[in-house]
């Protein structure tokens, strides 16, 4: 199967004062199209940094990061932003929705970058909300929604522009068990029915069990596979 993510010899170091800190060290990683990868590990192990590399939010110090057929390590500025808009949907632990916009408008946001008409954007946002089961909450502001609903809105925003990869950073970290399970079930549906490739950072073993593959990151190095 074709690798949608292909990372080779990835290094990431930060300079803090006079000290050089290695965050990611010799990372080799592939994910097949339609795959579902969970990244686990202790705090500070480099999980989020690796996720940011895959999502094109951060650049490697060394190595190549091929995602969706593009070595994004070589992309910069506008080109990298365009690539993110077309390929990556982000789901954050704290949802990161805009408080001043309704659920529908939050979902519609990424479509402002497209040439779609206003009507078409609204239609697509409602479809995305329908997929996550929140079409009836379209006009609600974030302050009027529960944590689980907020995360579902965030997921709708991540898939509204038909991005191929969902990059999820602790998507259930701020939710109770029941809400977390609903989110995990939804992500599984997106993976199986909508063929979205998912890369998820989590501390939650229950969440990791939904993934096809679970890798452990410790001190910047990928170690054993936890489960499959």
């Amino acid at each position, binding site marked *: 199967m074709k690798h949608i993510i292909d990372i080779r010899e990835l290094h990431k170091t930060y300079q803090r004062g006079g000290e050089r800190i290695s965050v990611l060290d010799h990372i080799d990683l592939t994910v097949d199209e339609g795959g579902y990868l969970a990244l686990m590990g202790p705090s500070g192990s480099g999980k*989020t940094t690796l996720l*940011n590399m895959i*999502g094109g*939010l*951060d650049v490697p110090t060394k190595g190549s990061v091929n995602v969706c057929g593009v070595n994004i390590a070589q992309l910069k*500025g*506008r080109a990298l*932003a*365009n*690539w*993110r*808009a*077309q390929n*990556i949907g*982000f789901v*954050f*632990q*704290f949802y*990161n929705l*805009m*408080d*001043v*916009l309704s659920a*529908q*408008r939050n979902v*519609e*946001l*990424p479509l*402002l*970058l497209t040439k779609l008409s*206003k009507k078409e*954007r*609204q239609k697509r946002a409602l479809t995305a909300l329908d997929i996550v089961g929140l079409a009836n909450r379209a006009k609600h502001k974030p302050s009027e929604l529960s944590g689980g609903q907020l995360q579902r809105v965030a997921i709708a*925003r991540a898939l509204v522009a038909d991005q191929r990869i969902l990059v999820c950073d602790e998507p259930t970290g701020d939710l109770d068990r029941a809400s977390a399970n609903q989110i995990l079930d939804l992500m599984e549906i997106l993976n199986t029915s909508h063929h979205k490739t998912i890369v998820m950072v989590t501390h939650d073993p229950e969440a990791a069990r939904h993934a096809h593959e679970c890798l452990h990151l410790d001190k910047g190095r990928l170690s054993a596979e936890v489960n499959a």
Partner: protein
Amino acid sequence: MSYLGFLFANLGRKKVRTWLTFLSIVVCFLLFGLLRTVGGMFSGPVNLAGVDRLVVSPKYSIIDPLPISHMNVLRGLSGVQSAAHADWFGGNYLDFGLAFPTIPVKPREYFNVYSELEITQADLDTFENTRTGAVASRSTAERFGWQIGDTIPIMGNIYPQEDGALLWEFELVGIYDRPNSSGGNFEDFYIHYDYFEEAKQHSKGMIGWISVKVDHPDEAALLASDIDALFENSRNPTRTMTENEYNAQFTKQLGNIGMMINMILTAVFFSILLLVANTMIQSFRERLSDLGVLKALGFNDGWVARMVLYESLLLNVSGAVVGIGLSYLSLIGLEPMLSNFGVVELTSANLIFAMAIAALLGLVVGAIPAIRASSLPIVDVLKARG
């Protein structure tokens, strides 16, 4: 959601603060519209064409007098229908807080030139025949509760009497109306020139200005230049102008109106600059994480910077549009009071100037947050959010 809707939504993040800032901008441009219009009336070009009355005043300063002999010359000039002279008596009624224009005139001459002033023939006759007589506008008489026959004491501050006394007393012998003044503030109090001329201590034989009624309004501009040419080489050269310009000249004696207005506006705009800049910077700081998320979603640095800049422009330009609109409406209401000084008109030049200032203000106050938004590192912002 449209892009404009998105900008409005962002501005609505802190509604009270945004409204207060918006209202400050509105007030600022309301002042701009009013002051620039009023200032323009004192400095704008004068159109002499079509006026039926001209004012002949001293060329260099309205406080220089003209010899009364100019009157005779003017009366004989072709194109002059009639003429009447007047002067500025100054003075105060009762105390320094109560003042109105007191003007010595030749009754029949003056009311002939100012034919729109309505006075009964009986009152005019009495005024003509009473050397210490005076007539007041109805508004002035009502303001002070005067009745015909009352003695009106005026404390002179320019012209003492021959014995040095500053107190002048006049008998109110008539009331006049000015129906076409549209409710304007018309308070002139006319006293008899003959009495004034005889009783004053100095400047005998001199007058303040001459009002000339022209035969053909279409030739008013030509007549004005003819009059000034006539006296050009005399000891008392003249400057002939419209009544509006003359009134404006009077007010100009207070100082350089245009400069004062520009100084006030500069101070106002500088305050607004600081206020709006503060609002925009606060707004920027409060939504760092939103800006970081937008960038993560694929909005590039330039897009995010432009969005911040457009918000600033939207706030400033919409405030300016509302402010200028209100000033336009206010000027319609103020026109009766201001029309004595010239044409009350919010000019297109001032409109364009206001919009240019609004745009510049928007760009200046939006520039710093926009630049900072552009260089915002996504990872750091998202990390700070947790």
